[in-house]
């Protein structure tokens, strides 16, 4: 059995893992990057559409191009890349972490490290998760799995398609299905507005006259062997209007109904999960409740764009390096969600150090206001042009903002959107 030791093990070779591993190795620490697939890049490799990299590279790239730039940095970085390898267990013994891995190439591997960076990404919610009634025929796919089948294998799942959910992957797949010759008959969204970006509604639906039914649900799936038909029911104030149900004949259903961070492995080493994000609770330095175990990217919380993942992973890596050097933890205070906030990341801050906050809100509003406050003092107020649940809000609370608090005033912060 192969046994090795590193300063850090990064789990997952997608955008987050690539960025974190590179940054840690730059500081001279030994890093192993473990990826279950044969090649690096993660889900980016099947996202062949453009729209990536505007923040990170100031130009518009496709998913594979974005990945290839990150992978290119690995050459000569000193990161040990271990592909075709699945981590099956994580163990923490007196501060030393061990990853148990299986690989068809390397056999069983026992890898030890001082720190672990969780960067496993997320999975798609599926039909069972949304409890759609009806039969269980062939022809029901999550949007991402259909994307993989088409863009990597050239397998076309079906010819007449109904898409449930208007998340960006669903919208992108509406265009992809059309561009490979299938007919997309409807996109059905339970919310009163589309979940995806406006530009994707325009270029993926409107360009092809694909109808978007907001405040509608697919209420029933028909078909014995293969999907034959769906019922679509409008909602008024959340209540299904059964008498207004109509049907669409189709052979394929794609689901784009949300993503869930993949934290089953994190739980094995005792990482506590925030039920609002389904990702770990993290300190301001991206460390979970388990000392030396960090998390970044979509395993922490689901991001809207990959550029933010890369950026977050880089910031996480800086903290991993800091931890490897100092091994001490600064005093911290909590940051808690206030009015209208679904969740925020990170959940703690260090007095005097800037905070890069990611959050999502329950409300849809123009000219909203973000308020950061302690129980008796407002630290920051910021105007936001437009907020909605599907768009992640990114706020930097700088040292200057925090300077408003005198040393004895540092205490738990609350963040609200009104």
């Amino acid at each position: 059995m192969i046994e090795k030791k590193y300063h850090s093990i990064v789990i997952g070779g997608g955008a987050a893992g690539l960025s974190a591993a590179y940054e840690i190795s730059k500081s001279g620490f030994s890093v192993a990057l473990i990826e279950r697939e044969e090649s690096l890049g993660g889900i980016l490799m099947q996202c062949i559409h453009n729209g990536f990299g505007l923040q990170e590279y100031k130009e518009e790239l496709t998913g594979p191009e974005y990945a290839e730039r990150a992978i290119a940095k690995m050459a000569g970085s000193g990161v040990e890349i271990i592909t075709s390898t699945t981590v099956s267990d994580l163990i923490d013994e007196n501060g030393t972490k061990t990853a148990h891995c299986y690989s068809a190439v390397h056999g069983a591997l026992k890898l030890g490290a001082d720190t672990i960076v969780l960067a496993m990404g997320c999975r798609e919610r599926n039909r069972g998760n949304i409890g759609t009634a009806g039969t269980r025929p062939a022809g029901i796919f999550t949007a991402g799995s259909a994307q993989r089948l088409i863009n990597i294998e050239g397998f076309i799942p079906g010819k007449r398609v109904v898409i449930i959910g208007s998340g960006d992957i669903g919208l992108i797949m509406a265009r992809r299905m059309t561009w490979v010759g299938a007919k997309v008959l409807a996109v059905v969204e339970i919310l009163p507005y589309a979940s995806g970006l406006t530009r994707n509604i325009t270029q993926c639906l409107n360009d092809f006259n694909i109808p978007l039914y907001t405040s509608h649900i697919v209420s029933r799936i028909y078909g014995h062997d293969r999907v034959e038909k769906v019922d679509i029911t409008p909602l008024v104030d959340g209540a299904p209007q059964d008498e207004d149900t109509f049907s669409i004949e189709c052979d394929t259903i794609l689901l784009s109904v949300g993503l869930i961070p993949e934290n089953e492995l994190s739980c094995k080493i005792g990482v506590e999960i925030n039920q609002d994000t389904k990702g770990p609770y993290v300190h301001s330095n991206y460390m979970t409740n388990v000392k030396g175990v960090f998390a970044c990217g979509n395993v922490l919380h689901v991001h809207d764009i990959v550029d933010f993942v890369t950026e977050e992973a880089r910031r996480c890596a800086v903290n991993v390096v800091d931890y490897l050097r100092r091994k001490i933890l600064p005093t911290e205070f909590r940051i808690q969600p206030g009015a209208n906030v679904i969740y925020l990341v990170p959940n703690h801050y260090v007095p005097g150090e800037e905070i890069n906050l990611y959050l999502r809100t329950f409300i849809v509003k123009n000219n909203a206001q973000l308020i950061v406050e302690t129980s008796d003092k407002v630290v920051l107020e910021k105007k936001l042009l437009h907020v909605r649940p599907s768009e992640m809000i990114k706020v930097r609370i700088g040292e200057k903002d925090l300077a408003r608090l005198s040393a004895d005033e540092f205490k738990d912060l609350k963040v609200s959107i009104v």
Partner: protein
Amino acid sequence: MKDPKKIICISCPIGCELTVGYENDQLSVSGNKCARGKSYGQEEYLEPKRIVTAVVKTNSATLTYIPIKTDQPLKKEYINDLLNHLYQLEVKVPITLNQCLLKNFNNTGVNIVFTRSLEA
């Protein structure tokens, strides 16, 4: 404004709602927040174009399809022709990122380039 059209800008994720039409024989754009919005609005009004991405069959044993893109937006009316042409091709490895697959497609000035490298 003469012949006004509402157009959603796709230049960036903000998605501004533009109004485009003729004012005194001059094509005018309002609702944009930046210069890219103005030129997008004008182009979309006169001659809509899109970046097209797709995959092409390879002779590789490890990856049967490889992604490509147009190196600049292509006039919408050419998209079907391009896709139908691409789907009939089989390309040979090795392939490098940004390598050109097709030059000046249908005399549009648009090139088709690979967006992934693939070793032989």
